[in-house]
């Protein structure tokens, strides 16, 4: 095990506490076919960071982790696509269920409605092409700025806004039944 400065290690522990959840959430939504691997790839990203603690400035850990994680996810997606159909392990429905939402409303009917919206929104996000999905999740769900997303994905700023726009348009269409009702 590589020895690191105690302060650096402490920061690393803190980063695990702080970033593992958003990272795993991002991975789970990128790995639509194999969400059960979300935790593994998240660990891989942290492992990679550990090996590069001295090379990556502390302030850049979060975008760096997302960038590595995104690469790992794309790699796994590629491998899944090339896997013979018979060998693809279909994830259990249980694995696909994320942590139950913390619904603000105490009204059971409202809770059920939100749950249904979330379920359909998850499906709609999963159906987005990867390049739209990753931009949408990083911006909208994980709260990265356009500049950060451009850096993470190594694409121009303009491409970020274009992909985000297209992702939103598709999702608005997919979710129209809820939006029309609630409008």
């Amino acid at each position, binding site marked *: 095990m590589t020895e690191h400065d105690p302060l650096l290690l402490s920061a690393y522990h803190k980063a695990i506490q702080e970033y593992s959840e958003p990272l795993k959430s991002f991975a789970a939504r990128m790995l639509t076919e194999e969400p059960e691997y979300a935790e593994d790839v*998240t660990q891989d990203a942290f492992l990679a960071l550990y*090996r590069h603690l001295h*090379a990556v400035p502390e302030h850049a850990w979060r975008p760096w982790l997302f960038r590595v994680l995104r690469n790992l996810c794309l790699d796994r997606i590629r491998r899944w696509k090339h896997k013979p159909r018979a060998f693809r392990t279909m994830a259990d429905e249980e694995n696909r269920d994320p942590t139950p939402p913390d619904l603000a409303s105490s009204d059971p009917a409202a809770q059920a409605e939100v749950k249904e919206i979330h379920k359909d929104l998850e499906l709609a996000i999963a159906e987005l092409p990867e390049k739209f999905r990753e931009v949408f999740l990083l*911006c909208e769900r994980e709260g990265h700025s356009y500049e950060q997303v451009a850096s993470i994905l190594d694409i121009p700023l303009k491409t970020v806004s274009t992909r985000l726009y297209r992702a939103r348009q598709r999702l608005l269409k997919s979710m129209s039944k809820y939006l029309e009702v609630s409008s």
Partner: protein
Amino acid sequence: MNCQHAQKEMGSALDRRLPQSEQRAFQEHILACKPCRLEFDRHKKLQTWTQSLPSHKPSSDFSQRLFGRIQSGEGSPEGILLQPVPITRKLSIFAAGAVTAAALMLGAFLIQDTLRGPRDDSSITFLQTQPTPTSVSDPVRRAEFELNNALVGYETAQGLQTVPDPNQRTFDNIIHRGKSIEDSLSLLAELIQAGEIRIGLEGQQSLEFQQHMDRLRVQARVMQWAPSDWLQQQVVERQQGSSAVMFILEAGGGRDPATKTMRHILILRGKTKSQ
């Protein structure tokens, strides 16, 4: 601001990326224009729903398992050394040009030469500085030497920081992208055909190689190599003298941002205990 402009800037307004004056103009427009206001509301609802999607919490032993992996080295699927791909096949694929879609990595992994006098065998080290070969008559060293020359040539041509002395290459600067590996591979193919080197790695060496691969695997992931392809590997060992072991690693999925090609080259060196 008119409707067309408002529609165009809706995303930017939603993300508050408009200049202050434009943001104000947008707000004024949607207050006055019901269709645009409804459209903006739809965007906001979608954003709110997305932000309220449930999180995927890591398991309670996430950190514990992570540090377990750190301490034991990156875990690899078992058997990655058990089914080596014949090097002749790799080279024939390479010769056929199929490797334009794959990254090739060539590593040199030096081991103790039992015929060359005592060395410090107290620990196994990788990427440790080795004496610069005084002669390139040794076929394996010659291949390595040629490879390094090609690498330096490429780095110089590309205006990259170069490390002329192969012995000074460290783990952090050993990864390069280049196209000059062909010469070295051709040389290697000649050596194989001439029976100068053979394939194989056993026992403790195999274990150490496995551990070394685990570390490389992490690096490969960072560098966007596909771990699946990366698991294919071939060990080439000198038939006589056993002064060096070279291995060729094949990886795919790498992308050179400059050339959009898929080739990478890696030189590694180190030594290990004698058997």
